């Protein structure tokens, strides 16, 4: 049925010599068109996968990949990174006490200081991250537990958050703003960094908190309800998330551009991490002058307002200082991967070359016995 419908498509491409037999009229022929497409004779490239034809490709890939890999590896190695775990599992850790006694319900903040030493100076801008391990921010129900409309400043969603936020949707009869499990579990440790110079004085290192979130998040996705004028009024009739100490409009009272839903720490947290071990940008330490390093080598002190409990799920908290290059943070893997794949290609190319010389002597004219 379908088949015969093709007849309609056929054109009469064959009536050249049909005016015979007393002009009986042109007989419409069913002869198929002699086109390359219909006769399946489209010009085609037929790559043939033999040792001989494939081995150049292997060599070329090898030759391209190995230099790229070396380049990547070198640039990754040039990145300076310092990491310090301040969870406080170990009894020697200054935060041990904080970690031990702390839970979500604690009201008084616990402060601990972790001293550390940078062996090498950090030259360019330094990015300060906090890192969490074993924290499944990618859990399916966790990822869903948010209301983007509410975060976008939608008034109706503010008062009536999405069902996805359950069970962090309402608290004591009032809608939670921001609702959902992600917001509820906002990372709320405060980290401060001091440089201890040679005579033992603590110099506060200025930490920039602007520009740590995606521009689009800050300006498009996240908005405060009713503009930024008076957040206290705007968030009236809503309740703070259960685990929070203070309501959302007091996240950063110092800067109205960084308060409420558009608080950048909050925005960064809301971008759920892909893997259970992750880091999130916390602050940026900007380079002051071209002559002095941003962070010269020496002694430093990390002061932590310890609010965030992770020990219950065997998690770890870290502070990371890192410079970045064009390809992001320190990660030698990609360089190694390029070198490895390039080497394997090269090796396989050699194997193929041997095979080609040893066995592939057919010269493309096989004698097939009939």
């Amino acid at each position, binding site marked *: *049925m379908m088949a015969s419908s093709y007849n309609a498509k056929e054109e009469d491409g064959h009536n050249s*010599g049909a005016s015979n037999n007393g002009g009986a009229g042109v007989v419409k022929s069913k*002869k198929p068109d002699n086109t390359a497409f219909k006769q399946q004779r489209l010009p085609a490239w037929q790559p043939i996968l033999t040792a001989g034809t494939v081995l150049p490709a292997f060599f070329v890939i090898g030759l391209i990949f190995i230099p790229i890999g070396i380049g990547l590896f070198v640039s990754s190695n040039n990145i300076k990174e310092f990491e310090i775990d301040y969870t406080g599992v170990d009894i020697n850790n200054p935060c041990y006490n904080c970690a031990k006694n702390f839970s979500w319900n604690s009201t008084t903040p616990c402060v601990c200081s972790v001293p550390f030493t940078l062996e090498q100076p950090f030259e360019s801008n330094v990015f300060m991250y906090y890192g969490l391990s074993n924290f499944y921010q990618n859990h*399916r129900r*966790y990822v869903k537990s948010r209301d983007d*409309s509410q975060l976008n400043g939608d008034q109706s969603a503010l008062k009536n958050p999405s069902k996805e936020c359950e069970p962090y949707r309402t608290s004591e009869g009032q809608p939670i703003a921001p609702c959902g499990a992600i917001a509820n579990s906002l990372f709320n440790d405060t980290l401060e960094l001091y440089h201890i110079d040679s005579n033992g004085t603590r110099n506060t290192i200025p930490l920039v908190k602007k520009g740590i979130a995606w521009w689009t998040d800050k300006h498009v996705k996240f908005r405060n309800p009713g503009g930024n004028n008076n957040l206290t009024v705007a968030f009236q009739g809503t309740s703070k998330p259960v685990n929070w100490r203070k309501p959302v409009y007091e996240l950063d009272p110092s800067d109205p551009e960084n308060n409420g839903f558009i608080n950048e720490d909050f925005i960064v947290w809301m971008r759920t991490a892909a893997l259970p071990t992750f880091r999130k*940008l916390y602050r940026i330490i900007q380079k002051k002058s071209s002559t002095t390093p941003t962070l010269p080598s020496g002694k430093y002190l990390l002061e932590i307002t310890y609010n965030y409990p992770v020990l219950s*799920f065997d998690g770890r908290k870290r502070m990371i200082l890192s410079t970045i290059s064009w*390809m992001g943070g320190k990660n030698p893997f990609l360089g190694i*991967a390029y070198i490895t794949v390039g080497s394997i290609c090269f090796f396989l190319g050699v194997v193929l070359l041997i095979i080609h010389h040893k066995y592939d002597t057919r010269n493309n004219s096989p004698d097939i016995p009939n």
Partner: protein
Amino acid sequence: MAREGEDPGMAKASKVKRQRKKKPKENKTRTVHANILYDNAKGEENPNRNYANNKIKTTKYTVLSFLPKNLFEQFHRFANVYFVFIALLNFVPVVNAFQPELALAPVVFILSVTAIKDLWEDYRRHRSDQEINHMDCLVYSRAERRYVERYWKEVRVGDFIRLRCNEILPADVLLLSSSDPDRLCHIETATLDGETNLKQRQVVRSFFDLDCDFDPLKYNGIIECEKPNNDLNRFRGYIIHQSGRRDALYKENLLLRGCTIRNTEEAVGIVIYAGHETKAMLNNNGPRYKRSKLERQMNVHVFWCVIILLVMCLFAAVGHGLWMFQYGDKRPVFDVLSPEGTDLSPIMSAIYLFLTMIIVFQVLIPISLFVSIEIVKICQVYFIHQDMDLYDEETDSHLQCRALNITEDLGQMQYIFSDKTGTLTENKMVFRRCTVAGVEYSHDANARRLAMYQEMDSEEEDCTSHSGTLPRRDSVTSHQSARVVLRSQSTKSHRRTGSRAEAKRASILSKHTAFSSPMEKDITPDPQLLDKVNECSSQMDFMRFHSQPMSQLPSDLADIIDFFIALTICNTVVVSSPNQPRQKVRMRFELKSPVKTIEDFIKRFTPSRLTSGSNSSSSSSLITNRSSNRGCSSLLSSPSAESTLTKLDEEQPPRGLEHSFGPVPPCYNGKAWNLEDGELRYEAESPDEAALVYAARAYKCSLVGRLPDQVTVELPHLGKLSFELLHTLGFDSTRKRMSVVVRHPLTDQITVYTKGADSAIMDLIKPPDTGKRQIKIVSRTQNYLNLYAADGLRTLCIAKKILSKEQYACWLQHHLQAETAIQGREELLFDSALRLETNLQLLGATGIEDRLQDGVPETIASLRMAGLQIWVLTGDKQETAVNIAYACKLLDPEEEILTLNADSQEACALLLEESLHYIQAKFLCSSTDQAAKAFHSNFAPFEIYPSSSPSSSSHTTPFTVLRLGLVIDGRTLAYALDKSLEDKFLAVARSCRSVLCCRSTPLQKSMVVKLVRNKLKVMTLAIGDGANDVSMIQVADVGVGISGQEGMQAVMASDFALPRFRYLQKLLLVHGHWCYSRLANMILYFFYKNAMFVALIFWYQFYCGFSGSAMIDQWYLIFFNLMFSAFPQLITGTLDKDVSAETLQQLPQLYVNGQNSEEYKPYMFWMNMIDAFYQSLVCFFIPYFAYADSDVDLFTWGTPITTLALFTILVHLGIETKTWTWMNWLSIAFSTALFFTVALCYNASCPTCYTPSNPYWTMQRLLQDPLFYLLCVITPVAALLLNLFFKVLVQVPFSSGGQMKLREPVSLFSEPTRWR
């Protein structure tokens, strides 16, 4: 066309409805009253009201029922139910994985595509129904007392209908009146069975004698007939008149819906079956649905995919349970409580998660696979249709794919069962030789002429071929050969005017006449025989003139004239004229009624005989006097040179037929025959008949007219003789003969002429005690018959019998009883025929050649090289079949032939046992024999038989194909097919290189196919052209019909219809191979693609606490299969060519690939799965490590993974693709572009939508990230490196000089990197 598409299920449903309607009247017959007796056709009292009306409705749906009904039908496919189930599962909040609306999208898409397709088809059916229902016809109206125009749909059972010439019949109509003086009506049944010859239908006997016009008001009969059924060739019933008289009704009285009235100005009939109950509609079966072997294998693997899916889900569920368990009572912040705020136990979460995972992993069961396969198959069918090499210019037809879903089976055939006549041969019968009264007439000149035809065929249009014919003239001095030259030249000159194609086109135009090729019309008579015929007829003329009894004629001469009379009249040939292609030639003279007695005859024709006797000059006809004079003067002399000229004169342009109807009395001195010569066309039901009639005409014994009760024959000197046709006992395959009973006009004897297969006739010849001459004739004829058979000719015996009036009367009485019997009529008629056809007197025999079609030996040779076993199943006699088999290289003169002819079951068993031993012995000795070793090494590359046949495990005997041919006849076959012997028979048959079954009935043919198919578990293909092949075609895995000479039944039953046998080669070797390898590769690729994509999410579960989270955005996940990766694989699945068409045809061995299912083996599925899992590991872990411990968020990490998975999949397809056309490049570029376009638009469209991924500006940011590009480069390379390496490695012939693998033919047979 639309009607053809009627769904079988629908037909069934309507049938059920009809049956329900009729329940109150559980009759075995249908009674039809005339509607004229009732006021209202639908009124309560009308007994016809329960019968279906003529409105047809082939649509499946109405506007209202479309949606529910279509959905209901679509949900019959299990996969659809499964996907809808999953989509609905998504609406359950606890387990949902995606936005529920989004998850519905693919299912809705697939369902709506199918629904739109169905709707469109149904609309077209509706349109064509409307068109048909609103055609006009004339129906008698009681109120207006005349025929009024009505729509077809308004016609009801019991209406009287007036039909005019060239009208199409609106319903099945019983013919009551015809304007034809003979009460005949001619119909063309091309729409029903494709046969273009006219068929005669007769007015019901009781209305035969009506002189005036039929008046419906006077009709008072009641018709009882069968219930509607789909047998086109059967109609039984009777009409009861008011007088109580019963008249039997036959199929000759019934005009079937869809036929066209021809040659009859007007006919009136009563509607018996209308609308869906007409035989034509009941015969409409929808397209056939077969499931291909590949699809069966695929379904197994779909099932495995389900199991893999369940295992993966189960694994994840257990993992999740354990993960939950390890936290114990300390609920971490990221483990969200249930919406009610309650704690979920690990076990409950695991159970919920199991369901969630089913949703997330649903992609593993490829939803688009089924749709894609359908699309690819339609494209394949399109390309097969478009192939110029499968187009036959002569008949302007190309290959038809009637079954759309088994194209790939064409590439996996192992056994071919072929019919002989019409399939291997042209079924264009050419009269070659004959023997009359024991004397052989070799027709050498004729043979030479035929040879020349063949030459011309091969020479195409060679202008210089004159020289080819001239030397012949020198060597042959007889007049006939001179004529041959002249004639062939005239043909040549005709050919020279145009191309060969043009000449062929001319033959197409003249093809209005069934079974008349120039070859069979153009017969050069044997001079000796021609002389004898002339002598004989002149003597008869003389005797008639002198009123001497005909019996004084020498018996051999009498035999000759009888022989030709039998050839002329013992058939069912209808005469027509080419000028008015569909007008019957009316050679009616002045007589209105058939001649009753010889006295009558003489009385009527004496004056004209005197006229012709005096001188032809008195005839004022426009016939060339010269030729008639010559005709008269050449009495008793051999034809002079002039007579050849007259022959040429006869070929002058046709004169108007009206001259022959003129007031001029017809002349009987052989004048008229040259008028008709070259003008009359014979339309025969079988090509043999036409060939014989043309042969007789060459001897001036020509058939000029046939009426139901009279045959007019024109004889030299005697002129037109009218034979009163008393009975025709038609041909049937059990009797294998036909007979006519006529009253001989010259002797007034009742004569039976019988024509039939020699085996059937020879047994019926009068016992030899009747005379030495007859014995001699019989034995000599038998010798010649054997000779003919050895030449591969089809033999027919001609016999006659003279009945005394008493004998005839006695037989007639019985016969009439048989004819009127309602029950067991067939058997009674058969017995009656047997009673008549005994004690025959043998006249002679004919040898007819059925030429092999072009390219048959080559096709068979290459199919055999392709590893196909070819069996020929024919109804022909053994000798003929064997010779044809030699001619078409099926049997090799060098090979031994086992002939199995047995008379009993025991003998057959013994024979089989012996042959088996013989084969084993031969095999054993040959395996040690050095020579045999050579033979084996010859076949080494494609020695597939021992290993490939899956059933070889059941047979312990080793089995190799030897150089043996097996010939078995029908009777032995019947024994061999018995349950007890079939295994032995198969064991013998499969060891033979070729098998030839002769004298087999249609049922046996299908039994053989079924046996081989079921016992050996092989793929079978049956090819045939006639009705006798239908059962075999239906049984085989793939049925191929030759749309040739013998109607359309085979084509109707087939899956593929070919114009010629030789096209089978390209169809199987090229298209079959391509279709198979394309589809097999596409299916494997599909499995790979889905597994690879789903596994990415599976690996992720280890890093998200088995929570069912997916890093791939739900949009990408759902549309990946449907959009992003769909086009390239469709293009490759449609266009890829692993080997070029030329190579495939040159090296048929490559076909073995498909026979052994080498493109799709179970291990390949698993290899693909392993490869998919490996590649997904690479695609997962390279981004994993690249982004480990970074600030990447879930979907910014997932999007690169999606992208590089897409790249990997596309590059993988690239490695699989063997030929790259611009379409492949385009499709890959399009896929990539589509993905990025969709991603960019999607990521820019809405900052708050699409929870939970909320991918706003993700892609845009990624495109600025160099890491993204670095990942996209390395991952596909790393993922496909090993795949490519192994692909190369597999092709390396490690044992150089050893056996080569044919698996990857490309590397072996085509030059590297060539542009074609």
